[in-house]
């Protein structure tokens, strides 16, 4: 089992750091899955996470100049690690002006992901900073726990409003209530509502547009039969929603959510080189 990768380009390093920062805001610990082509940051829906789950996928070629991965076995050419993304974030924080950043799997006092940063210095030799981040190696028998979640059979799919706006609305609502109702219809309308004994506040978004989903057999999605005015809603934990919105460091190219009425909201944020899916279950 071997992993080593190198980033040389400053823009790639910057971008990678921002992705890691986003992940760090969403999960205290998560699973890093390495394949020959991709990196995945996975959070499964355990009770400890409040039932949220996350699936983030990056193409390694968009970030790394060198990438070598040898999995646990030839027919299972992958590596699954449990790590604390905050550590990775901290290691990369002061590496932004580095000449090179190498990330590799090592065995120091325990399995570690070692980030070795080569920094410019006034002397002839570079300065080297190494960060040994302890990780847990997840054995093959547990890999099934980390499969890609399927897109749920949703009632409504809608593009999100500008995330910055949505974030500032939700931030203010957080002070009033712990849960927020997210509802939307096939007419491109979305409402964010909170309701307490004293006050209820609703923010209306219009003209958002609904993404055209095509099901696998090529036919149009069954939601076509749905009354376009009818709202699908889910009541979710406002802090989880805010975590998702606040963690975004870059505006995504596409941002949408799929609502399964009263069950779950599935968020999809797409950037050029990164895709992030985040599931927030509805509260009882």
């Amino acid at each position, binding site marked *: 089992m*071997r992993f080593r990768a190198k980033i040389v380009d400053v823009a790639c390093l910057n971008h990678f750091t921002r992705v890691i920062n986003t992940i760090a805001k969403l999960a205290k610990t998560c699973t890093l899955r390495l394949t020959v082509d991709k990196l995945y940051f996975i959070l499964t829906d355990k009770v400890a996470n409040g039932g949220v789950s996350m699936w983030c996928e990056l193409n390694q070629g968009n970030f790394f100049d060198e990438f070598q991965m040898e999995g646990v076995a030839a027919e299972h050419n992958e590596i699954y690690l449990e790590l604390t993304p905050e550590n990775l974030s901290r290691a990369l924080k002061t590496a932004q002006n580095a000449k090179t950043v190498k990330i*590799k799997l*090592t065995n120091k*006092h325990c399995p570690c992901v070692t980030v070795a940063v080569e920094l410019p210095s006034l002397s002839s*030799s570079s*300065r080297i*900073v*190494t960060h*040994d981040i302890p990780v847990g190696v997840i054995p093959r028998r547990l890999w099934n726990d980390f499969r890609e979640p399927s897109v749920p059979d949703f009632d409504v799919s809608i593009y999100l409003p500008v995330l910055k706006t949505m974030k500032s609305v939700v931030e203010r609502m957080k002070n009033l209530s712990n849960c927020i109702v997210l509802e939307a219809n096939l007419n491109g309308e979305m409402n964010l509502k909170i309701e307490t004994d004293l006050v209820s506040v609703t923010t209306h978004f219009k003209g958002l547009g609904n993404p055209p989903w095509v099901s696998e057999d090529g036919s149009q999605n069954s939601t076509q039969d749905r009354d376009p005015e009818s709202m699908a809603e889910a009541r979710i934990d406002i802090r989880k929603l805010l975590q998702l919105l606040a963690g975004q460091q870059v505006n995504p190219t596409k941002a949408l959510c799929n609502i399964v009425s009263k069950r779950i909201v599935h968020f999809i944020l797409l950037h050029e080189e990164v895709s992030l899916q985040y599931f927030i279950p509805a509260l009882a």
Partner: protein
Amino acid sequence: MGLALDHCLFPSPLVIGKAVHSLSRIGDELYVEPTEDGLSLRAVNSSRSAYACFLFAPLFFQLYEEGSLDPDGETFRCKVLMKSFLGVFRSLPSLEKMVEKCLISLNPRASRLVVQLHCKYGVTKTHNLSFQECELLQAVFDKELCANTLRAPARVLVDAVVHFPVTLAEVTLGVSPAGKVSFRNYLDEETEPSRTMVTELCLSEDEFQDVQVQQQSHVTFCLKEFRGILSFAESSNLPLNIHFDSPGRPAIFTLSDPLLEVHLVLATLSDPNSSSQVHSTTLQARPANGAFPTATPDDDFTGDDIDSYMIAMESTCEEGLGLPSSPTFPQRHPHPGAALESQSSAMESDLEGAVPGTPPQKKFRSLFFGSVLTPSQAGTHPGPSQDVLAEDSEGES
């Protein structure tokens, strides 16, 4: 005991302000002592494991009038609440822009230390600070006795510590005769090595203005106080000298300039392990916070093979098999890690010298036995640099 009257007027209150800011990182009380060598401002922390002294030469001041000695021949000294003194110099930017002169004097009738800021536009701010007379605060140390010396521009060291989190308590500085200097975060015995990130920075000899290393060694000291002096050094553009020896002996940081001499003395953690021994077990490539030499940038990944770990893990299905815990120092109880038993017994650290208090200070030995000298010694007291020992004198020559 009579009071000595003293005035000093200086045109660069910013430097004094920065000094007070640095001193505030150390202790809650500011010791003020005007002597014929200059005005000294000192501080010590509650567990007596950190001491700093800023000595401003008389020439630093536009006017330096040291008052007459009292009948006992003692110079006046007092201590002021750090919070109060810092309050006068709190905003460094406004100090720089608005304050033209500063006058410090003693008002014996009101028992107040008067700090007067003469600002622009005819504004004068007068602060009357109450003080307490106090004993001499003097740490005993001698940088000449230290085996190792480093000198570097403050910038280099500031850039070195930036990689460590602001909350990190202690850092370990290591040197080797080959000229490698490293900083690493220290994991104390309460942190679990398999859960904590270890960061290490290696600098080469070329980055330093002077490197004199007699033997490989590493010392661990508090980062907070070190950062305090670093920021002063950086803003005053002075190179920082670091003198240190073996673990347990204090590390001395100095800055000097014709008009100002700064000393910071920090106790270092004592390490029962000999720093030159590295015992690696079959599965353990390098113990956390074990000995140096520190990692060299290894491009060929030869030490990194995780396969042996994987084999062990898969064949026995037991978590953590064959991975004895690395020695960290100092441990309070022997660790079950079998392979390291020979070292474990030595690791039963004797902490009898430790001063009780909040961590991490409790593990540091006290810098000196008390700060009170007898009047006869005080009278002949020559100044900040002293010979003789710093910590527990048992067994020391």
